[in-house]
C-alpha cells in the first residue's frame, strides 16, 4: 500500500507538488492523469526517490509504502528501488544482451547463482509476455528488438528483482497501437501481483487499465477516486472538462 500525506515538492523555488494526500491500495492500478507539466512524473518519481537525482529539490510531508516513510533517514535508497520498480516513457534497455538486461538487477543485487538467474530471467520475460518472442535470441543485443518489445523487456527487467510496486511513466506513449494494447494486457495481468501506478495522457487507456484515477493540475491533486466515477461522473468541473477532452 502506498500513501502520501500532505506531500509538497519543490524544484529549488518552484513548488511542483502541493499538499498531495492520496492512498493507493495493494494490487490495484492507479492512473495519474492531467495536463502536461502538472506534476504527474514528479509525483510518480517520489516513490522510488528518483527525484533525489536532481540537485536542489526538497520534499516535505509523508510518503509511506507499507507504512514505512521512505524519506526517513533509515531507508537505503537502493534497497527501496528494488522494492519499487520503474518503467520509463522511452524504452531504455542497456547496450547489453536481452538476457543481461533482465539479469542486471539480480547481478547488482549480488546474486551469483546461475541457474537461479536463468530461471528468474525466464519467469520475468514470461510475465512481461516477451518470452516466446525472444527465447531463441537471449544472447542478442536488446537493440535488435522493436520498440514495443524493448519496452516489455524493460518491464521484465523491472520485474526480475521482485518488486512489490511498479511505477510506469507513460509506458506506451512511444509505441504503436498493437504494442500499446500488449502493454495494457500486461498491466491487467500484472495487477494480480503488483501495486501499479501509471502515468498516462491517454484517457481511454486510463479508463481501460486502472481501478483508481487521480487527476492533477498545476501541482494539485484535483480529484481522486474510482476510475469509473472519474470518467463518467466526476465531482469537479475541471476534471469533467479534462476527461472529456476539452482541454489539456
Amino acid at each position, binding site marked *: 500500500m502506498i500513501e502520501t500525506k500532505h506531500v509538497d515538492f519543490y524544484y529549488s523555488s518552484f513548488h511542483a507538488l502541493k499538499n498531495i494526500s492520496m492512498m493507493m491500495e495493494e494490487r490495484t492500478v492507479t492512473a495519474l492523469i492531467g495536463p502536461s507539466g502538472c506534476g504527474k512524473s514528479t509525483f510518480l518519481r517520489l516513490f522510488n526517490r528518483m527525484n533525489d537525482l536532481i540537485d536542489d529539490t526538497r520534499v516535505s510531508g509523508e510518503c509511506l509504502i507499507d507504512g514505512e516513510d521512505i524519506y526517513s533517514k533509515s531507508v537505503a535508497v*537502493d534497497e527501496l528501488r528494488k522494492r519499487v*520498480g520503474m518503467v520509463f516513457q522511452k524504452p531504455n534497455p542497456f547496450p547489453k544482451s536481452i538476457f543481461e538486461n533482465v539479469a542486471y538487477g539480480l547481478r*547488482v543485487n549480488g546474486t551469483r547463482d546461475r541457474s537461479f538467474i536463468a530461471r528468474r530471467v525466464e519467469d520475468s520475460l514470461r510475465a512481461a509476455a516477451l518470452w516466446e518472442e525472444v527465447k531463441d535470441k537471449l544472447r542478442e543485443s536488446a*537493440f535488435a528488438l522493436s520498440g514495443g518489445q*524493448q519496452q516489455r523487456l*524493460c518491464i521484465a527487467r523491472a520485474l526480475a528483482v521482485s518488486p512489490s510496486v511498479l511505477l510506469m511513466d507513460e509506458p506506451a506513449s512511444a509505441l504503436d497501437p498493437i504494442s500499446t494494447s500488449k502493454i495494457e494486457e500486461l498491466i491487467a495481468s500484472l495487477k494480480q501481483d503488483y501495486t501499479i501506478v501509471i502515468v498516462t495522457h491517454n484517457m481511454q487507456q486510463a479508463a481501460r487499465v486502472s481501478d483508481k484515477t487521480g487527476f492533477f493540475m498545476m501541482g494539485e491533486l484535483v480529484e481522486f477516486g474510482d476510475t469509473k466515477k472519474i470518467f463518467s461522473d466526476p465531482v469537479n468541473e475541471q476534471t469533467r472538462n479534462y476527461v472529456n477532452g476539452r482541454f489539456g
Partner: protein
Amino acid sequence: MKWSRRVIKYMIEGLFTLSGGVTSLVILLIVVFLFKEGMGLFTNPAVEKGYALCVNAANPTGSLDARVVKQIFDGEITTWEEVSEGKMTGPIALFRFNEIFSRYTEEELGEDYALLSPRLQEVVAGTPGIIAFLPEEYLPPGQEVVKRLRAGNITPGSFFTGGEWQPTVAPAPRFGVLPLILGTIWVSLFAIVLALVPGLGVAIYLSELAGARARGWLKPTIELLAGIPSVVYGFFGLVVLVPFIQKLFSLPVGESALAGSVVLAIMALPTIITIAEDAIRGVPRALREASLALGATHWQTIYRVIIPHASSGITAAAVLGIGRAVGETMAVLMVTGNAAVMPRSLFEPVRTIPATIAAELGEAPAGGAHYQALFLLGCILFVITMVINLSAEFIASRGQGKGVGA
C-alpha cells in the same frame, strides 16, 4: 539596401572559402615539402658527401658496407681478412685526409697545396693495405694506383631497421632510426599507462561525484594545465623529477625514459580527462536512471553501465593522449637524457624523434644527408600521429552506434 547586403554576404563567404582553401593548401604544401626533403636522403651516398674511400689499386675489394666502414674507422676491424672474404690479406692501414699534413712538410705539398694530389697518390700507392678517406677535390689521379671504393646509397632498409643513430661520424654516418622510433613509442606508451588511471579517475570524479563548486574550480584548473608551455613542464621535470628519480632508484643519472614518461603523463592528463569526461557525460541519462531504478548503487552504475558505455570515448581519450605525448618535444628533450640507443629499461636515457629533430636540426648543414634524415624523421612522426588520430576517430565513431535504441 538589399543588393549591398548580398554583395557583402558573397564577399564574406568568399573570404571564408578562400581562407579555408589557403589553409588546406599550406598544410598540404608543408607535408609535400616534408616528404620531398626527407626522401632525398636515399639519393645520398653512404659516405659523407664530397668524400670518397680509396684503396690501393692492387686491392681486389670493390665495395664496403657502410657498417663495415664504420667498424674499420672505429678500430673494431683491423685486418682485411675480416672484410674481403680472403681476397685481400694483411692489416688495414687507416688513413684520414688530415694525416697528410703530418707526413709531408708544407714545402713538399707545394704552393697552395698544388702537390697535394700527387702526394696522396704516393701514400695510397705506397701502402698496399691502405684505406683512405679523402675529399673528392684532392682525389689523386692515376686509376692504376688509386682505386675508389663503390659506396652505394643510403638504403631505406638501413634507415628503418638500423639500430644506430650516429649522424655525424665520419666517414660513414649511421642513420638507423629504430632506437628513436622505439624510444618515442616506449616513452609515450608508458606515459599513457601512467596517465590513464588517474585521468579516468578524475574524469569520473568530475562527471559523477564532484559537486558544482568542486567542478567549478577543478575544471578550469585542468584546462589551465593544458595551457602551460612545455618548457615549463620540462623545467619542472629537470629540477624536481629527475633528481627524485635518481635518488629513488639510486641511478647513475636521473634523466631517463621514466622521467620522460612521467612528464608526458602529466602533460597528457588534461587531454585524457577532458575527452573521457565528455564521453562519460555523453552517457544517456536514461541509462543511468534505468540502472539506479533497478536498485544499483551509484558505483555499480558507474562501472557496470557508464564506463562500458563510454569505453570507446575513453579509448579515444587514451589514444589522443598518446598522440599528444608522441609529438611532444621540449619537455622530453629536457628530461630523457637523449641517448640514441635502443630502449631497454625505463631507467636508462632514451631519445625520441621530436627531441632528435629539435636537438640536431640546428647543426645539420642544410641539404646534407643528416638534414634530410631529420626531415624523414619528421615524416615518420607525421605518419605516426596521423595513424593515431585516425584510429582515435575510428574508435570514437564506432562508439556512436551504441546509443540507446528507440
